[in-house]
């Protein structure tokens, strides 16, 4: 009788916990993306893309290309090179690379060793 009059029973608490857990799993799934893209020009890393977005790649005053990263895949949206091979490559995911020969650009995925770091001082 006492049990029945309680606002919350054990079963209710269990149900609330389960629902909350399911919600959090789906809600936080988007934040668990841990992909990192490395952009190299002439063999030197000049850009680390960690967050989804559109990034302009420049070499001094010279615009090279626009790189788009969605958190899982990366592709070149626009490039100043005449061959456009990098654009034609399309989207690549972890393990794939995009190469632009005229601009000597290599775009590849990298397993981040400094997850959560925005920038390095060196």
């Amino acid at each position, binding site marked *: 009788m006492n049990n029945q009059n309680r606002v919350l029973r054990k079963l209710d608490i269990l149900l*609330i916990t389960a629902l909350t857990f399911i919600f959090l799993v789906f809600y936080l799934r988007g934040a668990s993306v841990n992909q990192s893209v490395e952009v190299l020009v002439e063999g030197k890393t000049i850009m680390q893309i960690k967050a989804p977005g559109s990034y302009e790649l420049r070499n001094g005053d010279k615009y090279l290309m626009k790189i788009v990263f969605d958190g899982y895949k990366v592709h070149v949206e626009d490039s100043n090179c005449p061959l456009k091979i990098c654009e034609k490559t399309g989207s690549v995911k972890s393990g794939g690379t995009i190469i632009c020969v005229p601009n000597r650009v290599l775009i590849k995925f990298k397993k981040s060793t400094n997850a959560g770091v925005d920038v390095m001082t060196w």
Partner: protein
Amino acid sequence: MRQKNSKNVLKFDKRLAFISLSLLTILLIIFLTSFFRATPSYHELNGFTLGTYCRIVVSSKKNSKVLAEIIFNELDRVYKKYNPNDPASVVSRINGSTDWIDVDEETFVLLDVSIRFSKITNGAFDPALGNLIQLWGFDKIAEKIPNRIPTLDEINRALQRSGVDKVELDHQRRRIRLLNGAKLDLGGIAKGYALDRAYQVAKEVDKDCTGFVEAGGDIRILGPKFGSRPWVIGVRDPRKPDTAISYLYLTSGAVATSGDYERYFELNGIRYHHILNPKTGFPAKGAISVTVVADNAVTADALSTAGFVMGQDWEFVVLEFPKFGGSVLLVEENGTIRKSSTMVVYEQPK
């Protein structure tokens, strides 16, 4: 009994439905609030100036992309103005004269600040080492460093034509004169100055803008991440480029690092790097990396250079530099890390 049971079931169902609906409503509100919350989106611009790779990450209510370009142009303007290898630069004009040279206010203030840093660091920071830097071959950024150690005689002759004591400033007439063929090289402070200028122009355009500007590992914070959170800055391990030896959490200010791994050559197993000791004429010894956090990038840049030069006297660096406005993290040649007590403030996530 049956009726009672069915009533109980019905009662349970109503309560269950109420609890579930309430809970789902609360969770839905949380989800929608966070989904539609006006978090700033950052525009990133990467390019080469200041003789290095620059990264601008900025968010502005006005136009982040345009603001990033304004910042980049300002960095480039400062670089062109003070690049000793550019014949059109102010520094080249000063270096090419043995007489008094009238300079603009910006240049005069930068030179005055340089000399002040030289004084407070007992000459460890020196803006007039052009001849010495040239002798070692560390002046040309785009060219291969010559694999040659200058002779003692060459170094002594270069030292005679180097040093802040050969720089004269005329505050009355805003002019400068270099004595004994000395040459300026503002490499130890110009990057910091450019970053502070980047901050100033960014705030002129949008005082509420946030983000950071990085130039070759020196960083100037424009404002907190998403308006309230600190930017996480990894301090590079001087011997393992992919790893960090510490993490700094900054919502404002600047950080700069001087290391022996940026420009160097090795001969007979000895590393000869680009940060020269103004007293000996040889690459500075004692530290392999010095990171300084300060309110502005000029202070961080100048003190990181001076701290590196004074590496053998690390106690002075970590204890005294906070009085000049810089918190220090110094890595000795044996890998031992020395820190100012004030550094702990920046190593705590806020």
